[in-house]
């Protein structure tokens, strides 16, 4: 097998987008990025004009001789947030929006530990509930850093929609939308008991965090039961 040494002028490293020196390729003003430049793509093609490495062909032969496994990918999306010390997730389709934390106006004569009051969301009053209290999550004491006056709070109000009801609840922090496959969901540990167990679908382990995937329906039935 011939091993012809390829002579490649890596002008993209020399005068192109990845240059370290001052000299700049005049073409760069026209093409903006080297990947739009014909020189760059032509050199890329040149690399493919080289003979394959040893063993490559027999390896490909082996790979191609086996049947392709097409696994049905059951990808779902979830909205991840934190209340207290707990990372939780809800199916992302129920999330209407996330807004900055506002004032929660408490309602007199209501003895509910779930209902926090009313919040103003784009000029409309929405019911505000505490998801932590339903699940029995304890309030976390704020760290000194969080109590500092210049600390920007990551607290947000999450607005969700369930069976045409809009409900808002405050969260300590929002992570965003994640993608997961159903086989990534583990059963909740047996030590999880009480209301937490009732509303937990499973545990998702992502980025070193244990995220509790919540059952949307039972949870919001409970949340909106008293004030539908």
């Amino acid at each position: 097998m011939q091993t012809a040494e390829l002579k490649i002028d890596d002008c993209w490293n020399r005068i192109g987008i990845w240059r370290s020196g001052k000299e700049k390729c005049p073409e760069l003003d026209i093409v903006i990025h080297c990947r739009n430049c014909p020189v760059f793509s032509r050199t890329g093609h040149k690399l493919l004009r080289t003979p394959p490495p040893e063993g490559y062909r027999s390896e490909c032969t082996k790979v191609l001789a086996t049947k392709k496994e097409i696994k049905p990918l059951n990808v779902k999306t979830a909205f991840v947030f934190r209340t207290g010390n707990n990372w939780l997730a809800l199916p992302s389709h129920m999330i209407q929006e996330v807004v900055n934390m506002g004032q929660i106006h408490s309602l007199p004569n209501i003895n509910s530990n779930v209902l926090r009051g009313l919040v103003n969301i784009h000029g409309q009053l929405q019911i505000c509930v505490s998801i932590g209290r339903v699940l029995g999550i304890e309030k976390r004491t704020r760290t000194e850093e969080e109590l500092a006056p210049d600390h920007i709070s990551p607290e947000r109000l999450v607005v969700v929609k369930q069976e045409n009801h809009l409900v808002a609840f405050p969260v300590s922090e929002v992570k965003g939308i994640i993608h997961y496959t159903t086989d990534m969901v583990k059963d909740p540990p047996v030590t999880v008991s009480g209301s937490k167990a009732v509303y937990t679908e499973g545990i998702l382990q992502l980025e070193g965090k244990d995220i509790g995937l919540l059952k949307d329906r039972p949870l919001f039935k409970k949340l909106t039961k008293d004030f539908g």
Partner: protein
Amino acid sequence: MLLLLFEIGDGRYALDTNQVLEIVPLVKFKKIPATPDYVAGLMNYRGTGTPVIDLNQLVDSVSFEDVLSTRIIIVNYPVAGRGDRPLALIANNVTETASVQMTKPPPAGVIMDKSLYEDEIIPDTNNIIQWFDPQKTLSDKDITMLFEADA
């Protein structure tokens, strides 16, 4: 539609990707005796014995070059009485696709390279690209015979 661009000898060709099953690297294949020169052999494609056609042999009577850009295009080929069967075609420079406005093969069987890149900044675009239709290029009788040998 999306076109797969490749080369055979000096010519550039375009193939409608709807006909393409998969593009795979060069593999090893078994020789089939008493077949035309352009039949490179039989490959094991996902458990099925699949005839491999060397398009270089077919067009230019030279063998393919063993480089990374020489690839095998697996197409769906309708074989008389057997339905669609995978057929492997070896071509050069199978490295590009182009998304084009047209919905059916061009009337003259050729498209200008320029028309592929109307809004892109690629200057050397004055080549003629020929429309590649496996059924028109290959002899139907020969291919059917290959599938019979394999059965």
